[in-house]
């Protein structure tokens, strides 16, 4: 009853072709989806609301996890001596305020 999918899926093609599951999920098979995205709501006269972007495109699932992934690239900056010295004031052994502290904590 929902006419959300304007174009019917060709199931035979999806099942018997050698496409990877990711490609099928991304809807690359039917180029209609990419057109929808570009043309926007004006072209789509069937529905008032248009899904702007399909939820996760399948390649990289967003996991429900607590830790943030540490990228070694981001941590490379800590090889720099100046940066290492710049946070000295956050330790009790550091000077009270050598550089103006970024957060503006009032010091004792």
């Amino acid at each position, binding site marked *: 009853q929902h006419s959300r999918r304007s174009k019917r899926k060709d199931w035979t093609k999806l099942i018997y072709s050698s496409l990877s*599951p*990711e490609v099928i*999920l991304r809807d690359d098979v039917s180029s209609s989806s990419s057109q929808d995205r570009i043309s926007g709501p004006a072209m789509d006269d069937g529905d008032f609301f248009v899904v702007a972007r*399909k*939820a*996760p495109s*399948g390649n990289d*699932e*967003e*996991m*429900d*996890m*607590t*830790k*943030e*992934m*540490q990228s*070694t690239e*981001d*941590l490379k900056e*800590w090889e720099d001596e100046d940066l*290492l010295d710049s*946070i*000295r004031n*956050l*330790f*009790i*052994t*550091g000077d009270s305020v050598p550089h103006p502290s*970024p*957060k503006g*904590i009032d010091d004792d």
Partner: protein
Amino acid sequence: MTQPNPGILHFHGHQYLRHRLVLSILSGKSVRIDKIRSDDKNPGLRGCLLRLLERITNGTIIEISVTGTAVLLKPGVITGGQVMHDCPLSRSIGYFLEPVIMLAPFAKKPLQLTLRGITSDDYDLSVDLIRTVTLPHLQLFGLSEGLELRIKKRGSPPLGGGEVQFLCPVVKQVKTLNFVDPGKIKRIRGISHAVRVNPQFSNRMIEASRSVLNRYIPDIYLYSDVYKGEDSGKSPGYALTLLAESTTGAMHCAEAVSQPGVPPEDIALTASRALLAEIRAGAKMLAGVEWANLRPEQFNSSVM
């Protein structure tokens, strides 16, 4: 289509599943979550968090659809008591322990939970972080007597084999928290462990970490946690957990877990630098307890 039951909260998707389930149990409201990975190549629920929640509660009704993409939870009473649970190897123990920590203080009886599985991995808080960072934060809310996490055995991915015991008292009234002063870092503590590999790995990590951290303060104590034989689980692995404590009791934490082909020194450097990045980010509440900052009141107001 039938009118949806007004008493049931409706959510979509697999994100925040744990928060939704926990808040549902705490607030006593039924919750229905659908479209759980319905467009995924591997659709539906994974893991067995629902079974664990069923074990620590009484009267909870859980209905899962045939495809596993929808679940209905009618919360019961949090009973507590002695519970044993085998965690699947897809997620580490931390994933299961976090929601339990939110529920356990409000149980009828003190909870004694034994969990088996993977003790530290890349995605969730390791048991070391929960023991040294999350539990001390619960003390700020008025839980202290008898709050404990014992790491009986370690278990590295992929085969796990670890075992922890979580003891949690029941709290009558939760204290409110007013914490604004980040203070200055006064000491750094750390736990380094290596199982089923050369025990020297642990010391090598400590040495490498000190090479970065020693410049700041002298009060650094990195503990090498040794587990032998049966207690070291089924797979090889090593990790370094670091935490920095400030003069006002604020804690910053970071950790890095072994990866194939990466020497222990690099793991230690990653952990140490991540700790410095955490300290620089400063004012924000530490990563280890962010998930718990969502309180039931917020839940109620956000769904009205």
